[in-house]
């Protein structure tokens, strides 16, 4: 089964690049452009991986992260926080599985996704 990855990022092009990177790492991807949209989507979908920007319109990534982590449905979900805000990134270290500071390169994200894919693959076996 193809693993599912949500890319919660308000920049359309950046989210496209992230999606291509994750896609080339064999993830099925969905891009969510604001916090509200993401929240809505998460009520009925449980992804295997979330790439989360912190500065989002409608609802902040920090709030979203807190809610996801408080929800038992997402306990198997990996979360990569990708932000340019180093100070806010510091606050998420306990909750996120990985924190990467922007700029995030295509290759860097692809390598990370590949590693996670292998871990997920091993777990399902």
């Amino acid at each position, binding site marked *: 089964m193809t693993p599912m990855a949500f890319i919660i990022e308000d920049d359309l092009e*950046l989210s496209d690049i992230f999606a291509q990177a994750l896609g080339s790492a064999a993830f099925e991807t969905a891009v969510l452009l604001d916090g509200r949209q993401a929240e809505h989507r998460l009520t009925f979908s449980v992804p295997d991986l979330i790439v989360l920007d912190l500065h989002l319109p409608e609802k902040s990534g920090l709030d979203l992260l807190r809610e996801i982590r408080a929800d038992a449905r997402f306990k198997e979900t990996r979360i990569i926080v990708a932000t*340019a805000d180093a100070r806010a990134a510091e606050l998420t270290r306990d909750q996120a599985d990985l924190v990467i500071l922007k700029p995030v390169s295509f290759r860097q994200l692809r390598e990370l996704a590949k590693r996670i894919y292998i871990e997920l693959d091993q777990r399902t076996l």
Partner: protein
Amino acid sequence: MSLRSKTLLIISATLLALITLLYLSSHLIVMNSYLSLEHEIAERNLERVLNHLTDDFATLNAVARDWAYWDDTYAFVQGENPEYVNLNLIDASFISFDVNLLAMLDDNGQLVVTRAYDLQQGAPIPWPTSMTDYLQPTSPLLAPLGDGNAIQGMILLPENPLLVIAIPILKSNGSGPVGGVMIWGRYLDAHTHSRLEEMTRLNLNLFPLNQPLDPRLQTVVLQLHDPTNRVITPLDDQVTAAYALLTDLNGTGAALIEVQIDREVWSRGQNTVFYFMMALIAIGLIIGAIIYWLLEKWILSRIACLKTQMNLISADPNDTRTGLANAIEVNGDDEIKTLADEVNRMLKALYQARWQAEQNLITRAEILEERVEARTAELNEANLRLVDEIDERRKAQEALIVARDRALEGLRLKTQILANVSHDARTPLNVIMGYAEILEEQIHGNLTPKQSDVIKRIHANAAELLAFINNLLDSSQLEMNKVSLRPERFAISDLINALMAAMETRAVSRGLTLTVSVDADLPETIYNDFGRVKQILFNLVDNAIKFTLTGTIQVRLYWLPHDATRWAIQVADTGIGISPELREQIFEPFWQVDGTVTRRNNNGVGLGLSIVDQLCRLMNCEIQCESEVERGTKFTILIPFISEPVTEDLR
């Protein structure tokens, strides 16, 4: 000791010494003369007694001569006149001649007749045998038989001393031959004694030497070894005694005669001395009292008065009635008066001196007061000036604060703008780089080599631009002190790997060699802010790549050989070098903006070294720079080891 006591003492001592001296000398002189007078009187009385005895002998001698030079006696002793005894040797004869014994011896020395009579009893007594014994043929009393000369003297009989006269019996005309010897004797007995006392009106005592004597008298006897000597010695305070020795016919001592005399003269002398003494003491006391009174009146009381007045002055020198301003009053015209006058002169001088001193003091106080006033006025003036100045300064400070706040606000705004610009610029750059990478990875189809090259150039320049924007952001944040360190334990190998990943391609693409060496003794992991250490290292290497055309860039990490507390990152290049003039500027931000440095194959505004410098300050690191123009530059960053908190360990 007060002067009065001293005076009294001197007077008393003088009088006492004087009286003692006078008493002793008067006693010596007066009593001596009285004593010698007493001696004289005693001696005279003794002589009187002795003269009486001599007179008695003379009387007896005359009577005896009458009887012995008488024919009747002559005839009787020749045995021819038997009636003679009854006619002449009767009691009346004994009484009238005051004799006790009468004896006659013939020319052969044989006793013819002996008669004895007790004058006190008034009756005849038997002839004493002691006398018979004494009348031996060798007896001196028989000497008249031989030479016809009479003998008189004393003999010591056991019962009493006896005054005796032996006289030759001759015819009435005094012709011989000697018919015999007539002996008359008178006892020195109580009768004779009382008669003698009566005649001399003296107390007499006779001590025959054939009887025991008390020791006092024995001493006297010894002193009288020469019969002409006299001994006079007081018996007690009332009586003195004079002694003479009476000798017998042989010239040896027979009896001691003692005459006792009242010591009237001596006691009178005693009295005289006593009264003299009394008078002396009385006079001494009077004179002493007078002397003391006079001294008191003329000297002591005046000195006391002087002292009282001076005490009064010294007690309160400032009192107008009794103080320094007053003079001392003393009567008379002598040294004390002179002393008082001198004291007065001194007081006056003192008073004047003090007055002068007070005047000086007042003057000085006034001067001082004036000075104080002047100084106070000056100070007030200065104070006012100071207040004005402070006011001005305060205003200036306020203006400065406003200016500073504006400047800070400007800086903050600039940083904010920079941050916004950077953020806004980074996102599209990130996008550009991301798409470039996607193309490079040929996900959407293969590229021709030319296309691939173009894409690489786009990516490289975008990366450079991103690095520049990052530096710009970091620089402004460092300037605002907004950067805080986040130390963690990291591996040196991670640092090296990151460096190689980021820089090796760039170096190689410029035809340069990048080498990294790590000294073996350097710890494998280090506790510090990994991101900042990496930033320092990247900036230095980036800088080296920019300014090196050919050659190598050598990176070395090592533990300082002489400083165990620090380790070092060294980046050496073979680049264009830095001239000494430029060395001061290279750590300034934007130092390359003016374009004086040849910008050959690099672009940038010189933020890298400035960030290194600022980070080094933040991390307490030291930067060393060695450079030679056209030969190369060597930067060394000395980084202190940071001790890792214990809680970090536990976690």
